[in-house]
């Protein structure tokens, strides 16, 4: 289907509801990052994310025709993703997500020019990771969504199914909690020295 990328999401949803493979693929591709972010913030095991994403794709393929309001696709997809990830988490018997379990996260921050800056940055990223891990689930979800990029505030609110102001307050609190934890750790370090 020519020029499908230029069509808006609403049109894509309408085409996808008729079972068009390319429309479905484009639609999922456009929403891939934030869906992964939702799954990441819910799951405990990073290895299972691809399995859950496949399950989500399968469910979208088989159930998209039941979506009555195409303009609510993003909210529908978010509910679907969260539900499948939660069920997977329950079946595998893991607790809530431990972001540090994800191997890719621990390798973050490795491009500073100065080796000293590099070490400092890696240390900061490690502490951010630890602080994000300690966040309650609803704050962690908004934090991960906001920093995974690609979604506006309005879209994030739609995904989280809350008003924009609520989403902003949650994000502020999540950032505050991360900052406070990092500052506390820094103070402890100074005292230890």
């Amino acid at each position: 289907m020519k020029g499908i990328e230029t069509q808006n999401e609403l049109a894509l949803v309408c085409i996808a509801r008729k079972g068009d493979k390319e429309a479905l693929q484009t639609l999922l591709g456009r929403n891939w990052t934030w869906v992964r972010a939702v799954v990441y913030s819910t799951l405990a095991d990073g290895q299972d994310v691809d399995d859950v994403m496949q399950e989500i794709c399968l469910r979208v393929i088989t159930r998209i025709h039941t979506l009555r309001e195409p303009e609510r696709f993003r909210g529908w997809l978010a509910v679907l993703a969260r539900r499948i990830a939660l069920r997977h988490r329950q079946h595998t018997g893991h607790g809530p997500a431990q972001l540090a379990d994800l191997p890719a996260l621990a390798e973050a921050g490795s491009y500073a020019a100065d080796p000293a800056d590099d070490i400092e940055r890696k240390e900061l990223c490690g502490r951010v990771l630890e602080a994000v891990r300690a966040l309650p689930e609803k704050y962690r979800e908004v934090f991960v969504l906001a920093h995974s990029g690609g979604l506006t505030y309005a879209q994030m609110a739609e995904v989280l199914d809350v008003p924009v102001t609520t989403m902003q307050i949650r994000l502020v609190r999540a950032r505050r909690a991360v900052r406070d934890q990092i500052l506390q750790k820094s103070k402890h370090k100074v005292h230890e020295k």
Partner: protein
Amino acid sequence: MSATDDRLEILMGKLLDGEISPAEQRLLERELEHDAQARELLEQLQPLHECSREVVTQGVLKGGANSGEVFERAWRQNKRSLWGRVGQTLPVSFGGMRFAVGLAAGFLVGLSLHFVLVGGPEPPAETPPTPPVVRSVSPGMNDRGPAAPGFETSVPWDVTRKVDWYGFTDAAGNQWLIEGIREGMVRPAAYHGDL
């Protein structure tokens, strides 16, 4: 933490996320000019924001299969699995499926009990048609004893109406045949003079 702090931090967050409007940016700049603590807070938030973005982006995007690959696998799985597709149309959760199976089993047990133990539905007892009655009525309408054998009237379009008939002799000795309608109405029948 006051509402003003929340508002200020929301503005800072919007600035970092690229969501701030020109009016909000002017407001934030004004606040930052007067508030040293706010400037310090923003300076702390900027590196944290960059680091958080880096950590989350790498965690979310790197190390996993791309969307096309995963989608293709799901598409093939959907095409292969007819049962899977049938399953999607049935109740979604396992609990829902169990409920549906239980409901069907209960229905079957109930149905078999009904036919085996009770013995099936009995046909409704037919009430014998009440024969029409012809009664003789005295001029004073007090005598209601039977006067004539019952008979049926037939109409040209082959419909049999069952009615009660009453014989009546008036003061002049004329005989009348009265049709008694079941609904309780009484109306005189035609007199042919040959009774």
